[in-house]
């Protein structure tokens, strides 16, 4: 299967047909990938006989993590999604890559970064439902020359309670129960996000959300944002000087706010207030 997401083109192969069918359904509204993809991912049996006996999926691609644990075949879609993320995280050099969600309104982008569990994906999906254009829930691609954000609207990976909170409209992948991160379900970005996947947006605000705390907001100094974003970037060190220039420019030009929130409704109200 070949698919294009924003500037990146993927080819995914599999020893089994079921994960490919699930991927085709998930990416049905995406443009087809290029004949020469940026990244190739393969889902393979951990041992030849494991294709039939208690099937267990290992991922193979241009970029690998040797300690990546195999997943059961029922979670092959998750394995494929993780593998695609991994290729981008380790292999992408054309932009500064931030582990962040991003949404856009009126040509201005809101970038949300934080630890796993901070609520980036959930917030991005909620804002998408309220009419914001989703740029991505996993990676923000910062242009090395002009600082704009390139959309990378992969299916949004929602976990546990967030799945029910966003249930309803939209194209969803299958529910993956009992994964290492609990129950996971992918929500396909809406038509606005997919139609605009080649349209860049300038970042206007950086947000450091934290889920599960009493409501609080704090202006974050640019120097603190710089340090946190070097840690949140998967390719900052590899990019060298262009990465340094892009990141210093971002933190100097864009205000940063830390937001603690107890639940999704509070977070949306706080974003509305901060955004103005």
């Amino acid at each position, binding site marked *: 299967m070949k698919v294009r997401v924003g500037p990146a083109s993927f080819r995914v192969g599999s020893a089994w047909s079921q994960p490919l069918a699930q991927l085709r359904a998930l990416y049905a509204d995406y443009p087809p990938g290029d004949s020469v993809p940026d990244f190739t991912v393969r889902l393979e049996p951990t041992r030849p006989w494991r294709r039939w006996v208690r099937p267990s999926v290992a991922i193979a691609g241009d970029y690998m993590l040797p300690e990546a644990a195999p997943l059961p075949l029922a979670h092959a879609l998750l394995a494929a999604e993780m593998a695609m993320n991994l290729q981008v995280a380790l292999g992408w050099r054309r932009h500064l890559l931030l582990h962040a969600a991003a949404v856009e309104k009126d040509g201005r982008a809101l970038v949300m970064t934080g630890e796993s569990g901070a609520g980036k994906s959930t917030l991005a999906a909620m804002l998408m439902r309220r009419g914001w254009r989703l740029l991505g829930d996993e990676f923000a691609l910062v242009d090395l020359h002009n600082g704009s954000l390139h959309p990378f609207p992969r299916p949004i990976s929602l976990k546990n309670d967030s799945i029910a909170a966003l249930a309803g409209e939209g194209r969803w992948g299958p529910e993956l129960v009992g994964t290492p991160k609990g129950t996971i379900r992918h929500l396909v970005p809406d038509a606005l996000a997919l139609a605009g996947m080649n349209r860049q947006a300038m970042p206007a605000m950086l947000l450091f959300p934290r889920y599960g705390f009493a409501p609080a907001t704090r202006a974050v100094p*640019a*120097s603190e944002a*710089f*340090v946190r974003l*070097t840690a949140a970037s998967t390719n900052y060190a590899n990019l060298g000087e262009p990465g*340094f220039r892009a990141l210093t420019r971002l933190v100097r030009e864009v205000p940063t706010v830390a937001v603690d929130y107890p639940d999704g409704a509070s977070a949306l109200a706080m974003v509305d207030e901060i955004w103005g």
Partner: protein
Amino acid sequence: MIYRAPPADALLAEPIDAFTAVYHRPSGQTHLLVEPAPEILDALGRDGLTLAKLRAALAERYDLTEADDLAERLEELVAAGLVSAA
């Protein structure tokens, strides 16, 4: 002991609020410096200075206090690879 800063084109410095982000081209490492580190690099220059001469050079331009332990700051810059000592 003479302490030297790298050649000017080896460093890329960008002020970020109270800090100076410095990209060290030869190593590809990023450092976030707070005063007096950028001032020390500036004063040392490529020709270098001894600790005593550095102290005198900085005293001309800044109000140095007893608490400003220049030797310690210099050693930190040496450890970070931003200053060479020979």
